[in-house]
């Protein structure tokens, strides 16, 4: 079961991870990429634990935004952990 429902406007864009993020109670971040959102994915996972959240958003808001993203294909692999120093 989803840990929480979080609106996309409450998530933060993380340039390093190329993903929208939200704090996970384990200390890491729930993450979801723009490509995931464009595919209608609504689950943001934490790379460090078993928890996930349900992202509340309008699919239409992300459909018009694909040109530059497809060119760069910058999103990270899903299981990549948070970078540490």
């Amino acid at each position: 079961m989803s840990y929480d429902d979080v609106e996309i406007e409450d998530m933060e864009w993380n340039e390093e991870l190329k993903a929208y993020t939200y704090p996970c109670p384990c200390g890491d971040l729930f993450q979801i990429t723009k490509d995931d959102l464009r595919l209608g994915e609504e689950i943001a996972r934490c790379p460090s634990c078993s928890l996930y959240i349900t992202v509340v958003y309008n699919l239409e808001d992300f459909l018009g935004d694909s040109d530059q993203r497809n060119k760069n294909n910058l999103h990270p692999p899903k299981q990549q952990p948070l970078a540490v120093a």
Partner: protein
Amino acid sequence: MEHSEKGKEAKHHDEEEDEEEERQEVQEIWSWGAGTEGQLGTGRLEDEHLPQLLHLPSMASAGPISLLSCGGAHVIALTSGGRVLTWGRGTSGQLGHGDMVNSLYPKLVTSLQAYFISHVSAGWSHSGFVSDTGYLFTCGDGSFGQLGHGDYSSHCSPVRVSFFVTKHVEQIACGMRHSLVLLKGSSGFRTYAFGSGKRGQLGISNDKIKSVSLPEVTHGLEDVRIVSITANGDHSAALSVDGHLYTWGRGFSGTPDAHFPQCLLSSFLFTRAALGWNHALALTSDGEVFMLGGSYHGVLGDLEKMSPKQLPDPRGAILEKVSGLDALKIVHVAAGAEHSAVVTENEEIKTWGWGEHGQLGLGNTCDQTSPQAVSLSNNPKETATFKVFCGSGFTYAIQNPCV
């Protein structure tokens, strides 16, 4: 003004130095749980499922720790001599070392050395420090206005909050994306709030407030003498001098959010409160522990098996007594995001809740719905007293010798 503070600090340090060295040898610091950001102070970037006794030279030279505050993945230690050390995740500047990198070991916050720091708080990714002269400093992530500087920028060194320049700040409490401030006596025992307010956690308006970057007075506490404040997740809480507990922000157990402080309807007198992300612990003057939001907390790994939520009392979630404590009195409570820790009157540490990262210190990653005894490998000394402190997914215990 800074010079006089320096003088005071130096004098204080001299007086306490001998005494500190003696006590230093016997104060023990233990940590366990999520550790991949260096927050356990073990020097390793990994989770620990059992309590680890820390060997910290930088801490030894700074003097005994009087208070720990644990955030999302960083720790702030306050010494009895008013100094501050921080470690763990530093990528938002929350360690206050002037950079944005993690620190595996406790490091002195040198820019605060001119002050005698008397209170500290670690939020998800920001930090607050209060001096004995009533100055408030903040650093770390400011993107929700949670630093209180009137903008949304982040800082990697503590910056004094100029809004309070004519007021005496006594306490700071940092939540996920907001902060609470308690003022002292002569300026009125006012509670202020700033940062994200979407769940009502600022207590400043009935409307949905996205965020504010300058402190505003929390309404509904004007006539109440508040003695302590606490914040975690999207929750806020305050304790009054006469033992009433006020909570506001995100609702517990699916109850509606509270946009102003709500006094808990209870005949108990509370002496301490601790907040998680979905639960609250309240300690009574008789040493009993009560929990708000308990129907969610502690069954996190097993959510499918949860029974459908009961219709909540419109005034708020139900306060339940924590069972399984064998009628032992509790002397200290702490709450992580989804776990809890208490110290019993016979100086035993008990934990329960979410255990996936070993944050319960029981040697495994299981969840627990009732308090379980944590054993520190060197068997507790008869003359020792304990305090516990929880970060989001980790736990600290400090063992002090009895005076």
